[in-house]
């Protein structure tokens, strides 16, 4: 067992604490235009059976031909997971009868996968991290879909998905609680999306997880595991683990034993239920697919793909912290989703002085923009304020043309009306007043009109804040706050 496994939250039972041991198999649909072994389109949502080639339908005499794009994507993913890339791998047939599998077997990789061991660092609450080991990644065909609701007496089959390339990413049993499990899927999904090897769309089924759960006394021998199949929501994964762990603990504490079986999670009831037992498990009769030669490529091929790897979330986060001085938390928020990071970096690129205002830009993206987007239930790709507009707003603050307060008004105008922030500031007279003479006159007027407050402020300098407020109010918020402060201090003698 991996010594660096992060302990998880223990579950209290009647006989004491229990530890949960979790391993996951994630099926990630490879981003590619055509299927793993045929030229048919992988487009989602086509008319049933409109993306089916002769190979996908397993017509007599048809042969699979590997799609090189899928191989590139798998190797790229392996590199993104810091994993061993196997220069030689083998496609096997997994034999079973079901109408969603026209060949009568799924082409997969059994003994020799394209990618071997790797690891993923995941972020936990409170700034903690855990490292989850990757056992392997292999390429395989997706199955078709059965439609049971088209006829009272028949089932129909849609083979559009049949043969689409999947990456099965198998973790080591290094996950110790629901939080770690959710963090793992979140992080893996983020990495895949950064790499552009899977769109990570769980609603469309582009990313599905089989979750293996067992419980044991902390440090004790591993318990019997149950596999929860086909989870397509991170929230449900968390709920299913919590439920399944407690179910197993109850059975053991009642003197029972766990049967190794496959289970399904029912999100409506929040519980898992048995799908099939180990005895009913198929004998898949794996053997190397004689239609396909072993998949071989050179180290040079791998190195070239490595040189084309994009910056991944961990690297990007480190760079934001180091070169822009962002807090680890802010940097983490910005890199979590690839689109957010892209947006932030576009803002950065639009700034006049990145070193001066990079951090300010991060605050604006996280607090103003994300805050507002969340409130309206929109995501970053649908933001009414563009990265260029936000960069202009941050520039205006940074160069002292507008105050932070005015900037919020400006942001509101840009959000609702659009327009060039710099022109808006000009046209609507939102510029900050830095003319000392003009500010001094306002300060003098207020001091003259409020002798009682002056006396109080002299006795208790904190009360000078009242004067600042008055000046800002009278100037319509445009007075430079620093200049106002300095003047008041001199005039009030504090």
């Amino acid at each position, binding site marked *: 067992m991996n010594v660096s496994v992060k302990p998880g939250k223990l579950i209290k039972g009647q006989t004491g604490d229990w530890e949960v041991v979790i391993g996951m198999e994630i099926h990630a649909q490879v981003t590619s235009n055509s299927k793993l072994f045929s030229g048919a389109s992988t487009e989602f949502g086509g008319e049933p059976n409109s993306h089916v080639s002769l190979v996908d339908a397993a017509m007599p005499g048809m042969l699979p031909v590997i799609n090189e794009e899928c191989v590139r994507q798998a190797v790229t993913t392996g590199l993104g997971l810091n994993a061993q890339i196997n220069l030689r791998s083998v496609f096997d047939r997994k034999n079973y009868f079901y109408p969603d599998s026209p060949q*009568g077997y799924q082409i997969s990789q059994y003994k020799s996968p394209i990618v071997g061991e790797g690891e993923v660092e995941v972020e936990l609450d409170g700034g903690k991290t855990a490292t989850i080991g990757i056992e392997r990644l292999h390429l395989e065909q997706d199955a078709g879909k059965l439609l049971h609701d088209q006829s009272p007496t028949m089932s129909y089959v849609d083979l559009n998905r049949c043969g689409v390339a999947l990456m099965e990413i198998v973790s080591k049993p290094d996950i110790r609680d629901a939080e770690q499990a959710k963090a793992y899927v979140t992080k893996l999904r983020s990495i895949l999306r950064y790499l552009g090897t899977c769109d990570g769309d769980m609603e469309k089924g582009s990313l599905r997880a089989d979750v293996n759960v067992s419980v044991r006394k902390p440090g004790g021998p591993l318990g019997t595991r149950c596999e929860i199949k086909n989870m397509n929501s991170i929230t449900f994964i968390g709920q299913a683990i919590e439920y399944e762990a407690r179910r197993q603990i109850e059975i053991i504490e009642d003197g029972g034993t766990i049967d190794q079986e496959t289970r399904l999670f029912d999100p409506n009831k929040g519980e898992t239920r048995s799908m099939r037992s180990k005895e009913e498990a198929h004998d898949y*009769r794996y053997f190397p697919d004689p*239609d396909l030669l072993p998949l071989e490529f050179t180290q040079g091929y791998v190195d070239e793909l490595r040189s084309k790897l994009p910056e991944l979330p961990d690297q990007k986060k480190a760079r934001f912290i180091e070169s822009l001085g962002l807090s680890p938390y802010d940097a983490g928020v910005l890199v979590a989703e690839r689109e957010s990071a892209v947006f932030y970096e576009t803002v950065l690129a639009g700034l006049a002085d990145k070193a001066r205002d990079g951090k300010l830009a991060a605050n604006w993206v996280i607090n103003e923009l994300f805050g507002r987007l969340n409130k309206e239930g929109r995501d970053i790709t649908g933001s009414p304020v563009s990265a260029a507009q936000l960069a202009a707003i941050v520039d205006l603050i940074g160069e002292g043309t507008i105050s932070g307060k005015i900037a919020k008004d400006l942001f509101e105008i840009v959000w609702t009306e659009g327009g060039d922030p710099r022109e808006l500031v000009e046209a609507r007279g939102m510029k900050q007043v830095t003319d000392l003479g003009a500010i001094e006159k306002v300060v003098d007027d207020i001091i003259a009109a409020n002798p009682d407050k002056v006396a109080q402020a002299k006795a208790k300098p904190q009360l000078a804040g009242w004067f600042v407020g008055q000046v800002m109010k009278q100037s319509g918020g445009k007075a430079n706050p620093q200049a106002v402060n300095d003047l008041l201090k001199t005039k009030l003698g504090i």
Partner: protein
Amino acid sequence: MTDLTSMTIAEAKAGLANKSFTSLELTDAHLAAIEAARSLNAFILETPDQARAMARAIDAKIIKGEGGPLAGIPLGIKDLFATKDVRTTACSKILGNFVPPYESTVTSQLWRDGAVMLGKLNNDEFAMGSSNETSCFGPVVNPWRREGSNTTLVPGGSSGGSASAVAALLCMGATATDTGGSIRQPAAFTATVGVKPTYGRCSRWGIVAFASSLDQAGPIARTVRDSAILMRSMAGHDPKDTTSVDRTVPDYEAAIGKSVKGMKIGIPKEYRLDGMPAEIEKLWTEGAAWLKAAGAELVEVSLPHTKYALPAYYIVAPAEASSNLARYDGVRYGLRVPGRSIGELYQNTRAEGFGDEVRRRVMIGTYVLSAGYYDAYYLRAQKVRTLIKKDFEDCFAKGVSAILTPATPSAAFGVGEKGGADPVEMYLNDIFTVTVNMAGLPGIAVPAGKDAQGLPLGLQLIGRPFDEETLFSLGEVVEQAAGRFTPQRWW
């Protein structure tokens, strides 16, 4: 008419070129011969309209001097090859009236080069058999008979229809496939020439699969030269079959008549079986003498793992077949026998659709791949296969150009005579041929003589990978020495 059907492809090419006759005339002559020979059951589907249309089209091209290397030559196509818009069944009930919307690569190359399709030829169901008795269309009859006997003989299998049709002058040549001897054994039984090319030489795309790692398409023809002419059109790299090899296709015909002087020919001692008929022994010795007379040097070689080849073959081939045939499930095409559940539909369809031999092999294959048996059977068989391959490599590394063996352990036998009680009796037919498939090598069967009852016997030459040319050179030496054999027409 008889003249037109008894020509070789080489002769017909010359006749077409100098306008002695047209492809339509040639085609009509063969169509008439097919009609007159229906009792042989070689053709299971005649396509006269298509044949004549193709012949007319190629005649128009020939006039313009545009015909390809096979321009106007009428051929028969084994029913394992998918032919666009023409029923393709692999002679199994389970494919029913399946009409593929695609053309196999090998046949499309034949049409590209101007050949004419006469129809589809009978074969053992899914190419599983050595006598053409497992076909759902019934057995093929060998045009050869024992002297003074009317006993119906098998033409061998699985390409029995191809061999019978070529021998009986129903077509000038035929496509065939060879997984364990399915081209060479029927060729030997009918005094035709059969070539099993190097694995990867011909595309498997569009050929109904039996055992993918062993299947290979090849020609059956009446002379070595004709088989070389056909090979050139059938061979070639196909991006749709990743096991096909990207190598230039040589002009095989140019190898005919090339000197074999100084070539080392291996005589494998392990092929000298206990109880081998004296006639086979004699044929073999004679063949060796002919090659020696042509200047070749004969050397005894050892292929020590030969005795394990047949058992290993009957593990590997059924294993792959059990998986390859899973697609015939009644769901998308071919026969469907309904049931109350999907499981019943599968069971009913496959029970009714597959014949006994196919079911036997699917069950053997399923068994040897099962958890707990895989290592003991399939994995071991693959290890044996590696050793067999190495036997040949060692032999070729010593400078041997080709290996001479008998093609079959006996001449053609009677319909219903073998394998009824014990399928292994039938499997033993492949004893000299399976090693070649296991090692992926090229092999040729050439008629070399007759047994005491007047039935043809063949010799087999085994070559280095992708050295079919040497086999054609050597094969022609045997052919020249042995002469050609034509059955007496009785049908």
